[in-house]
């Protein structure tokens, strides 16, 4: 059976997952402050980690991603969801420290540009941007998700008008001599 960790599980813990959160009013199986790594698990404890609307709250994004990497087995999967920085939801929560875009995790996936910031590596398996309803209806979400060139153009030129909502990332932990 896959070992799944739901980080910042809130009240919608993923079925079958072990939940951690810092708030006792959630479905957490274990309470811990997610800004204070390391979390109380051994290295490579999990096949999959889900971090849904969490990374925008933690004090140090790089430290958080390093901790995700430590907890995953080699080839383990990290599913991460966060608001796009043009979504009203990114600013509605007074505990959101970071406003991110679909290229924010290049630190970990494109070592040539930013690799010197952190030694850990992830492979971006899949990425999906969600746009506001009106833009989805007009087909723009499809374009953003089906062409990396268009996504780049959208991030640089369009996204203050054609606003984003959430970004979903699927990363694979790259470990060892790979």
């Amino acid at each position, binding site marked *: 059976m896959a070992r799944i960790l739901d980080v910042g599980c809130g009240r919608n813990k993923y079925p079958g997952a072990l939940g951690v959160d810092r708030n006792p009013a959630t479905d957490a199986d274990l309470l811990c402050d997610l800004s204070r790594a390391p979390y109380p698990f051994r290295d490579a404890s999990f096949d999959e980690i889900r971090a849904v609307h969490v990374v925008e709250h933690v004090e140090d994004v790089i430290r958080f991603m390093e901790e995700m990497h430590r907890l995953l087995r080699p080839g383990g999967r990290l599913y991460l969801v966060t608001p796009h920085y043009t979504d*009203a939801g990114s600013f*509605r929560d007074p*505990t959101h420290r970071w406003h991110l875009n679909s290229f924010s995790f290049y630190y970990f996936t494109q070592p040539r540009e930013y690799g010197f910031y952190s030694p850990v590596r992830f492979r971006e398996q899949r990425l999906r941007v969600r746009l506001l309803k009106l833009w989805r209806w007009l087909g723009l979400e499809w374009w953003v998700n089906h062409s990396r060139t268009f996504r780049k153009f959208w991030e640089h030129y369009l996204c203050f008008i054609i606003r984003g909502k959430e970004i979903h990332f699927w990363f694979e932990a790259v470990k060892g001599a790979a």
Partner: protein
Amino acid sequence: MSTAGRRILDVGCGRGKYPGAIGIDRSRATQADVICDWALAYPFADSQFDEVRLIHVIEEVDDILATLAEVHRVARPGARVVIVTPHYTDHSSYCSPTHRWHLSSFSLWFFSDKPREYDYYAPAQFRERRVEVKLLRLWRWLGLEFLVNRFRWFRRFWEYYLCFVVRGKYITFELEVVK
């Protein structure tokens, strides 16, 4: 409005302390009556004030939840809390390198007593009495500020679809302390 007999606390009063208020600030160069860190604990007993004002303060504190909990503690039940902060689309939100938080007109909704998605996040401590958005002059002249403040649904639509073009300036929140 008369301030006679009402105890008012001006948190982070700077050099424009609210008339009749007790001012607290970090620096002696201000009009503060008490020097203390306005992000942390205030040297006052519980339920002391009829009104607490935080004008351009919450965007700078380390932890908004902790600061509002402290405001809640020193305010009496039913007290008025006035918070003014830049809208996240205003240039002033990015002008000061001490601004940690970029907020919208729904950012304090978490603390209100209405049924909410995330009520486990922050217990209902305040009732939202009034939210008023100021827009840049051009949009005010064109009547958009009126619409944003008149209709809650329009404010929502503005926050989601328009505000990076029709940009905001300040947001004023007026809350009532629930104890």
